[in-house]
Structure formats: structure tokens, C-alpha cells
């Protein structure tokens, strides 16, 4: 599910990319493109939009690489997901017709855009439907926590919340999922 790579290798690639090495930029893209794409497609539910946004995120990464410094606990992954989150917010702000997923699911079910999913895991569709019933913040926390194996501190850096809030929100989200699953009798 994840493109696992050693932290040192990623830092080395980042340094080389900062020095202007195109191969390192390509390697970083190969390592992170699917992860960013998955994070985005869960939110926008549209493949092409997710692909465009992924491209935007990596373009922003290239432009901002010179400003990135490995600080105390700021990993490159966290930094990249921060960019992805901001680009997602920009996307919502610009496309007024496309509302955030949670709003869309809750208040405008008729406007929900269903992506053309071909050869997708049926489980993915089930989970996506469940996750879309959570708030934007809770979706972020659940996704980053379970699909990116991030710690509350790392999620806090991406979402701009405190680590405690992340823990609390995660617990609330899980409770909500349990309720939904119980209510809808979804098979596990």
C-alpha cells in the first residue's frame, strides 16, 4: 500500500533535488505520487481532478524545495502532505460548484460527483462512502493515521491542529464509523 523508503534515503534525495538533480526529483515523484494521489482522490472523488491536483502538488514541491529545511521533527513526507492539503483547500475555494465532500454528502447528495471507477476494490467504495460521512478534519485524520501510518504529532503538523485534538478527533471519528457500520450492517 505504501511506498516504504528509508528516511535517510528520502533526505538524501531531497538534498540532491535541492542541489538541482532532476533524477532525484523524478525519484521523489515516483515514491510519493501514488500516496498523494490516494489522499486526494479520497477527497475529490474524481480521478482526473485528483491527477491534476497531484501534478499541482509536485510542481509546488519543485518550486518550494529550496525553502524546505529539515527541521527538528518536520519530515519531508509531512511537508509534502501539508502542500497537498493546502492545494486541496485552494481547489475547494476555486471550484465553487464542487463543494467539499462532507458538505456534499450531508446536504447535497444529488450533486455528489461519482468518479468513473474501473477495476476498483469494492471494499474501497464501501470505505469511501463511510469516510465521506465524516467531517473533513476527521477524514484527514483517519486517512493519515490508518493509510499513512502517521503519528498524531505528524498529523497535527499537516492539519494545523494540536496532537491532543488529533487524538480526540480520531477517537470521535472511529466511534462514528463504528456507529455507521453498526447501523448499515456492513459486512467486515
Amino acid at each position, binding site marked *: *500500500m505504501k511506498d516504504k523508503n528509508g528516511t535517510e534515503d528520502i533526505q538524501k534525495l531531497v538534498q540532491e533535488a535541492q542541489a*538541482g538533480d*532532476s533524477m532525484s*526529483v*523524478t525519484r521523489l*515523484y*515516483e515514491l510519493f*505520487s*501514488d500516496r498523494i*494521489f*490516494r489522499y486526494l*482522490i*479520497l477527497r475529490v472523488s474524481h*480521478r482526473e481532478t*485528483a*491527477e491534476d491536483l*497531484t*501534478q499541482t502538488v*509536485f*510542481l509546488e514541491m*519543485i*518550486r518550494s524545495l*529550496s525553502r524546505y*529545511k529539515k527541521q527538528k521533527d518536520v519530515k519531508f513526507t509531512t511537508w509534502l502532505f501539508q502542500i497537498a492539503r493546502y492545494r486541496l483547500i485552494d481547489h475547494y475555494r476555486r471550484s465553487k460548484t464542487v463543494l467539499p465532500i462532507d458538505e456534499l454528502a450531508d446536504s447535497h447528495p444529488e450533486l455528489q460527483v461519482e468518479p468513473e*471507477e474501473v477495476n*476498483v*476494490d469494492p*471494499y*474501497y467504495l*464501501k*470505505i*469511501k462512502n*463511510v469516510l465521506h460521512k465524516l467531517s473533513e478534519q476527521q477524514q484527514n485524520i*483517519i486517512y493519515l493515521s*490508518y*493509510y499513512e501510518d502517521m503519528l498524531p504529532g505528524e498529523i497535527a503538523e499537516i492539519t494545523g491542529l494540536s496532537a491532543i485534538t488529533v487524538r480526540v478527533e480520531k477517537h470521535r471519528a*472511529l466511534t462514528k*464509523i*463504528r456507529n455507521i*457500520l*453498526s*447501523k448499515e*450492517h*456492513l459486512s*467486515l
Partner: protein
Amino acid sequence: MKKRISQDEAERFIRKASFPNMDPVAKERTKQVLLSAHVNVTNTFDQRCIKQRGIFNYLFSNPMAPIIIALVMILSGAGTVLASDGAKPGDILYPLDKAMEQTRLNFTISDQAKAEFMLKVVEERQRERTELESEQKNNLFEESDKETNQALEHAQEVLSEVRVRQEEQNNERAREAIEEVGDKLNELQERHQERIQIEEQNELQNQEQNREQNVEDDVDEDNSDDSIDSSNANRSMDQDRNMNRNMNQNQNINSDMNQNGQVSEGDDSEDDSTSNVNSSDEESNDNSGDDQDGGEEDGSGGSQDDEEEVQN
């Protein structure tokens, strides 16, 4: 009946899903776009740094910039301090040199080292004086001597403090070393005072010589003044003679007029007496400032005039 889902089950449900990956074609296309963008961004960044923003912005965007700047500052500061080490009175860096000496003294912990350092300071003051002499900067000698005196006084103060402290501590070895420094310091002080005395004597001699020269010059000037005065006196004598001649001519004219017009004798006699008195006064005044020869000439001139009157 509603089945209650546990937290573990919910978590397992979430993890079970596999999210779709990016389309390979789209992925490749995006990669090409990113590569071209990276080349543009790198070029733009370099151009912006080097050409448009200049070397300073390039330096500040460099992660090594703080280290480079710190190094430059340290080196330039150290360079200034090193340069100030050879400064002499009148140099811009001389106050810095003295401040550095004071700082070094403050940071010197050992009493013996303090005493030795003060000796070095005095030696440096004397070396500065010698350099000034070799550069013939006479106007700075006084300042240099003052600095040497101050350094000697300061050294003696420090030495006495240190000596007392070591005596209290019964540190024989340090005390002996300090005494040795004290002897050297006294020697330097004596040498400095001797030099000052010699210079004062030289100065006095120079002053005396100058005075003598001035006196000789004054005498020469007086002689030249006398010759000028005598020529002026001769000139004034000629003028007096001319004046006397005119006066006598006027008196003769008056006496002729009296004889012809027969005016009252008392008035005339008064006039004559007054004119004679005036003329005699003038003559005496004129003769007083002149040489005796001139007076005799006047006298002879006067007798000649009398003879002319008689003939008339």
C-alpha cells in the same frame, strides 16, 4: 438486532481497503511536466540569484551564508585587533591597542603573568617612542612620553597589588619572579627618566643657543638702524638750515619795513625780540637733536646773516 462493532473491527475495516493508484499514463505525463518545470525552476532560480538579485541575495539564500558571514566577521575583527597591535600614538587603532591590552590584563589570572604582562606593556610604550623617533614625528613625542609615564605608573600599581597578594599567600617563587619583574621595571623607569632629563637639557641648550643667536641678530639690527638714523638726521639738518635761512630773510624784510614806515619802537622791539626768541628757540631745538658741527655751522650761518644785515 443491531450488531455492535468494536473499535478493533472498525480499524480492521478501514485498513482492509486498497485505494486506487494513479493511472500510469497520467503518471508518466505528469513526470515529464515536472521534469521540464524543474529545469525551468532551477534556471530561473540561478538567474534570479546571480543576475537579478545579486550576490548578497544569493549569499543569503545559501544555507552556508551564516557560517560565511560569521567567518568574515571573525577574521576581519581578528585582523583589526592584530593590526592594532603595532599601533603608535597618533594612529587610529592606538586606542584599540590600549583597550586590548587592558582586556588581556583583565583576562590574565596568574599574578606572575600579570606582572610580566605589565612589563611587556611598558616595553611596548618605549618601543613606540623609538619608532616615533625613527619616523621623526616630533609632535608626538610628548604624547608618547605621557603614555609611557602612565604605563609605568599602572605597572607599578599592578606590581604592588600583586606583590602584596603573593606575600599574603607566602608564595615565595611567585614573589621572587615578581621582584625580578619589578627590578626590570625600575630599570626601564630609570632609563625613561634619564632620557627625559637628557632631552630637557638638550632643549635648554637649544633655547640658550637660540637666545644668543637672537641677541646677536638684535645687535646687527641696531647697527643697521643707527646708520639709517644718521642719514635721516643729516636730511633733517639740511631742512633746518633752509628754514633758518627763510626766517632770517623774513626778519630782514620786517626790519626794512620798520625803518621805512617808522612804526612805534616798543611794538617793533617786542616783535623783534619775540622773533629773535622764536628763532633762537627754534635753533636751540634744532641743534639739540643734531650734531655739534651742525650747530656751529648754524652759528656761522647766523654771523654771515648779521654781516649781510649790516651791509644792507
